[in-house]
């Protein structure tokens, strides 16, 4: 699933490891999320959206197969 995590993180001047620490996940997870290789659980998606003060739909781009 595509998302805006990298743009949002860069806009806030955060590094991957800083975002990972804020979310309680590994840096590799952030990297995989940004590359669209890994789809987060609803809990993690919610945490990410909340961290950027956005909704899940604003962070993640849902594409039907």
């Amino acid at each position: 699933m595509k998302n805006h995590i990298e743009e949002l993180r860069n806009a806030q001047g955060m590094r991957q490891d800083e975002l990972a620490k804020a979310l309680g996940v590994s840096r590799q997870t952030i990297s995989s999320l940004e590359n669209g290789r890994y789809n987060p659980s609803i809990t993690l998606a919610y945490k990410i959206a909340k961290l950027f003060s956005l909704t899940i739909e604003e962070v993640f781009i849902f594409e039907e197969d």
Partner: protein
Amino acid sequence: MYYNNKRLALSIFWVILGVVLVVLCVTEVLDSNIYSGMGGALIGVGILQIIRNLKYRKDPEYREKINTEAGDERNSFIRNKSWAWTGYIVIIVQAVGVVIAVVLGQHAIQMVLSGCVCLELVVYWIAYLVLSRKY
């Protein structure tokens, strides 16, 4: 908390069990090198786990790293996926082994491998039933 008292107690138990096995081998109560090897391995693993446990308690950075790795959902996903792949691969390899054993006329190997495949499929169905009731 990943390295808790329960894990520490288990590590100490492995070391004690390892020492018992080695002592039994040295005193020739057990007369196989396999047991002394197992004992040595248990002592090694137990000591390593105890060292990690103590480092976890003393070093906040290490504690945070371990907690993040243990609680990271991608790691958990990869672990589950790896177990699933392992299951598929083992069953396929065993099934191929059954066919080869039949062709080569190895009746005993064929029976053992067939039994393993059946057992694994039964375990899979039990796990499926249990999980489908849970979720």
